[in-house]
């Protein structure tokens, strides 16, 4: 009986709304826990990273200034819609690569959290990730009201403080959970009107590539999110020293990578937020609150006379 050969997917980078291969031509092999090859994904180089940052920078004015908060919220909600459509494929990608057994994943917040994450099924992870995107979509047109305010100064002035995006944010995903952590780190940045360059999980780069496919069909303007599958050791130093990255958002990274990224704050006063240890990603109270947007905004205070 002839069996049908499937058309196996080529996994590429997602930069500026398109799917290029790495300019270096390099790839990384992703295998099953038994060592069976699944795919070769593009291995981003320093140049890819720099181009991604340029794309993110170029996309910033349209995303942050010309797009209304409502429209951003709708686009983020559409990301959730597209993820829902790709549920099976995302769960399959998580399942086929299997859990991270390298032991190099950074320590968790609590034993209970660690246990819960260890027993997180691929389907459950995808559901949590979709709901997490829905949650942060709903912040895009609200965080200004919760984080901003009117200041009662002692004079005839109307003064208010409102949050603006820090700008281009580098998102650094831990090894695991590859999908849930990446959306948990990335979506608050987008809800706050930043643009992103994300380093996908090293343990499961397939997820990074698939998320790129989700974004490409979600009405996200090109360059607003860029996802690089890569060897983190090569690229964290570039992020740290890059002078056109405004913020860094990561969690559950190795102490070495965290240290390198923190040093980036000294380079051009980047706003660096790396949660160590990582939160319990399955815990909504920990992972779904305006505290996730706050480090990714700048507060602008405006004064105007209220007396002529």
């Amino acid at each position, binding site marked *: 009986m002839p069996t049908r050969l499937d058309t196996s997917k080529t996994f590429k980078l997602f930069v500026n709304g398109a799917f290029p291969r790495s300019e270096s031509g390099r790839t990384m092999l992703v295998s099953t826990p038994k060592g069976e090859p699944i795919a070769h994904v593009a291995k981003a180089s320093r140049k890819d990273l720099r181009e991604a940052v340029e794309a993110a920078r170029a996309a910033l004015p349209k995303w942050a200034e010309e797009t209304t*908060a*409502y429209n951003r*919220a*709708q686009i983020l*909600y559409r990301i959730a819609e597209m993820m829902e459509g790709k549920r099976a494929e995302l769960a399959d990608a998580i399942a086929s690569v299997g859990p991270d057994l390298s032991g190099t994943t950074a320590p968790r917040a609590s034993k209970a959290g660690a246990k819960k994450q260890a027993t997180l099924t691929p389907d459950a992870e995808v559901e949590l990730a979709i*709901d997490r995107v*829905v*949650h942060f*979509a*709903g*912040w*895009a*047109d*609200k965080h200004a*009201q*919760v984080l901003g305010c009117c200041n009662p100064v002692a004079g*005839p002035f*109307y003064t208010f403080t409102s949050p603006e995006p820090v700008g281009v944010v580098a998102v650094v995903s831990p090894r695991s959970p590859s999908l849930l952590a990446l959306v948990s780190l990335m979506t608050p940045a987008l809800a706050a009107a930043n643009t992103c360059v994300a380093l996908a999980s090293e343990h499961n780069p397939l997820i990074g590539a698939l998320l790129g496919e989700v974004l490409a069909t979600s009405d996200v303007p090109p360059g607003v999110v860029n996802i690089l599958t890569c060897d983190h050791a090569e690229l964290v130093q570039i992020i740290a020293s890059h002078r056109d990255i405004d913020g860094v958002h990561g969690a559950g990274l190795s102490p070495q990578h965290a240290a390198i990224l923190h040093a980036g704050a000294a380079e051009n006063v980047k706003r660096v937020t790396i949660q160590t240890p990582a939160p319990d990603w399955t815990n*909504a109270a920990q992972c*779904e*609150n*305006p505290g996730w947007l706050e480090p990714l905004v700048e507060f602008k205070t405006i004064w*105007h*006379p*209220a*007396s*002529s």
Partner: protein
Amino acid sequence: MTTLRKGGTFNLAPAPESIKVEIKPRYGHFISGEFVEPRKASRSKSSAAPDYFTTLNPATERPLAEIAHARPADVDAAVAAARAAQPLWAALPAKERAKHLFRIARRIQERARELAILETMDCGKPIKESRDVDLPLVAAHFFYHAGWADKLQYAFPGRTPRPIGVCAQIIPWNFPLMMAAWKIAPALACGNTVVLKPAETTPLTALRLAEIFAEVGLPKGVVNIITGDGTTGASLVAHPGVDKVAFTGSTEVGKRIARTLADEVASGTRPSPKRLTLELGGKSPHIIFEDASIDQAVEGIIGGIFFNQGEVCCAGSRLFVQESILPEVIAKLEHRMASLRVGDPLDKNTDVGAINSAQQLERIQHYIALGESEGARLHQPITSWNKPSKGHWCAPCFFSGVQPSHTIAREEIFGPVLSVLSFRTPEEAITRANNTPYGLSAGIWTDKGSKVFEIARKLKAGVVWCNTFNKFDPASPFGGFKESGFGREGGMHGLRGYVELTQ
């Protein structure tokens, strides 16, 4: 100053909205997730009130559908359905409530054209407005409030927000679907359930919204919609199974509702009154200073009073013009108004549609007659327009030489009639602007920023539009001072009316 050429509009070819919208011949009440026939009148009572009444298209006076009239038994059933559904709705994880509301928003977006056409047919407002203003805001209200459902604790730091329970919501005929959205979205986001009574003359879009709720799988009983007249509303407000009343409509009826709720306490029925929010009438001042961008201001003034035929609670119906620019403003108003198109609301070129009912048209005409008899000068710049033989029509007009004591300067007309007064100093403008029992909105036109904020601080109005007017957004709290009501709708502050707060 350049001389303005009077009159003369371009003759545009008719551009009727051509999509046909299906309307059933008869609608029942939407209770517990399905449409049900009204309960029969009890035999002991005479059959004075019929089971159904008719809703008309005010532009053609043709009947659109038969609408059920809710009697106390129907009100009972609706409230009971809301009561039964409330604990289940509140017990859902907040995020699931959010996702229900997001679904509703998305479905409204998809059916927006159909809803806009239906709104125009039932209400009389131009398709340009229902399509480009009302419907986008309707979808946006559901979308915005969907996102609050799982974030309420951040709107009330340090407090624990809980649902109130069953909310009775009574809405007017001027923005039928938009008012339904303003009421239902926050109520549901905060874990409440709803019994909504749309206005007698405009039930169709609320009933279509009910179809959408059923279509997207909103749990039964979370929103119930009963149709009827003022007696239905009164039954609903007084129903013991209701925990909160939200009303948008006239100040007169709002006061009656407040009295009903107070009587329930006085008679010992309840220890404290039902929660209440009111959004009532207005006679909003629109102030134009000599240092305003006059052309922009005139555009804003026109929109402020003739948008939706002036049938707007926050309409800028009292124009205060600084004396030095009075002749120029009057000339520009006349010039601009001459090109307003009054006519078939379904025509995409129409600016001003039909007045909602014969009763409302009579009211407006009564005030126009009063304005003249009390000594103000009537300007009717729209000279040539084809008034259809059927339908309720009032061409936009304004009065100059209006004094603060004139009836048309004090009472809400709710039609396309602007009263123009003048002032010399800013202090005079402020005093005259505030000289009203109302306090819903106000408009200020001046290019000087410090004057904007100084005047805004001194006006007793819940919404102050500066160098703009009639701007609405689900993220922006809307509501009045004084007899224009209390409570806010929209924004973080709008949630307060739909939660109980405890420590």
